[in-house]
């Protein structure tokens, strides 16, 4: 049994709006195990993205937080960028349009590894090669609009893992892409956590993708954790009615999958 990296304990996140307090997360408790691939699934508004922002420490200032997130695996509070990397949904908007790829990929490494400009550029080349951007040296001086959506997402992943974080959160990182590119990015993420010793938290609305990729699955609905457990048991013996519905709609809509369910361990 591997050690617990992160303990989320009765976490609630509330936003005050004109219509009253709005719960983005309601008393969620969840353990994240070091080195695992955890899929967090749910529809939009289920609180899954709030969870990833809370883990990264990126919740907006006006959010009211109750409960706690502790990191026994680290023994200290992790720093965004250094210990946790995050990749967002839309690579079209999560890359700065007026900065070069080299700048954006290297800046995290420069900040946390104490690299100077040149070393950060070298690091950026290495990272771009790792996410399989062709001719990484040429990509350094290019700008985001010169790349396709899938390539942009690879670049965003390279930027997220620049400082060698031990946790990578992919927040709907594949949902803005077409199916083929989606599969490529999932494979890339899988490879990254296989090679490096990283914990992957994969936030998605696609239960099929979750089942094919994850060791464990946590299902969210309207700000609450519905159930969590081993990926196999969630898929084959779901406990909650909501999970069964999710699985049913998924099977109804199932098209030939590029990453088969049978791949899941």
């Amino acid at each position: 049994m591997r050690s617990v990296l992160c303990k989320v304990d009765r976490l609630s996140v509330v936003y005050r709006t004109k219509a009253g307090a709005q719960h983005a997360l309601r008393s969620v408790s969840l353990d994240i195990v070091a080195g695992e691939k955890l899929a967090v699934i749910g529809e939009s508004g289920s609180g899954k993205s709030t969870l990833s922002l809370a883990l990264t420490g990126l919740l907006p200032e006006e959010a009211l937080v109750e409960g706690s997130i502790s990191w026994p695996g680290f023994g200290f509070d992790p720093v965004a960028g250094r210990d946790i990397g995050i990749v967002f949904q839309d690579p079209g908007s999560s890359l700065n349009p007026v900065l070069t790829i080299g700048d954006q990929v290297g800046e995290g490494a420069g900040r946390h590894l104490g690299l100077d400009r040149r070393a950060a550029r070298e690091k950026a080349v290495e990272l771009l090669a790792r996410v399989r951007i062709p001719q990484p040296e040429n990509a350094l001086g290019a700008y985001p609009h010169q790349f396709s959506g899938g390539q942009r997402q690879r670049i965003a992943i390279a930027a997220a893992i620049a400082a060698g974080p031990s946790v990578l959160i992919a927040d709907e990182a594949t949902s803005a892409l077409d199916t083929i590119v989606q599969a490529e990015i999932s494979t890339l993420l899988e490879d990254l956590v296989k090679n490096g010793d990283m914990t992957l938290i994969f936030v998605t609305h696609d239960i099929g993708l979750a089942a094919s990729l994850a060791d464990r699955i946590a299902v969210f609905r309207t700000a609450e954790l519905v159930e969590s457990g081993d990926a196999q048991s969630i898929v084959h013996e779901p406990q909650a009615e909501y999970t069964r519905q999710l699985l049913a709609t998924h099977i109804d809509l199932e098209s030939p999958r590029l990453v088969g369910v049978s791949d899941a361990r």
Partner: protein
Amino acid sequence: MHRAWRLTKRRLIASIPVLAIVILGTFLLMELAPGDAVDAYLVSLGGGDSGLAEDLRQSYGLDQSALSRLWLYVSSLARLDLGWSIIFNRPILDVVLERLPNTLWLMGSATALAFTLGSLLGIVAGARPGSALDRVLSIGSLTLYAVPGFWLGLVLILVFSVQLRWLPTSGIETIASGKAGIARALDIARHLVLPVASLGFIYLALFLRMMRAGMGEVWRQDFVLAAKAKGLSRWRIVVHHVARNALLPLVTMLGLQAATMLGGSVVIESVFAIPGFGRLAQEAVAGRDAPLLMAVIIVSAVLVIIVNLLVDIAYAWLDPRVGSSEVASK
């Protein structure tokens, strides 16, 4: 071919018909004026007989039809001949070229002041939206934005020239001071401080407000969240990620405001008695010098076109997305 150059060429070609409309419009406007240049010239001489008027009309081609006079005017413009000034009794081009540098210095300095100080203060205000400093800058800039430049000029003269006696009240340099080189440059700079402030402060306020609003918009973008997720310092996020993007609309505004600022320099140059291009407009109106007024309007339009070209090039340099369609790595 570089994309900035491609852009410049396209822009230049597009400005030809626009300039033609300006010339035609100016010509028509002057046709509406009662009397013609010869009447005005004779008035400036203190009267003259009708025979002289006839001769003059013939020599300027004023006795011909409007259409042939328009043709005459356009073809002389094409030879860079702007006509003959009545009040100066010299070729207009010479007068314009003599006056232009003063105005370009005034406008250039005012723009530089407004842009750098305005965007810097805008960054300060927009770095922490809603803070006390932000509120102060916001209210201050709104008030400043409402202050007419000529009145600000008078208030500045009152404070800095009349009361404190720090700066000269008028002119572009000390007359017959015999200064040369750096001493002369410093003298001119001293004379320009108040006019530049009077002309530039309203744009300073404008740029501050735009920068602040732009920063507010950029803060909400995903790439700023991504930058925060990289754990970058607040300074780096503000300067590299937010301000860089928020600066772009300001650059566009720089081009849009070129014409307004040129108009503003007419009044400011008159307040500070600066012999500049802007003042020429007022002198032409006061002396009923229609050819000079026409020339001032057309040269202004050309200046605005040039400024906009420069702005386009700067924009293309700042925003890599402009005018590029190729994909780097296929």
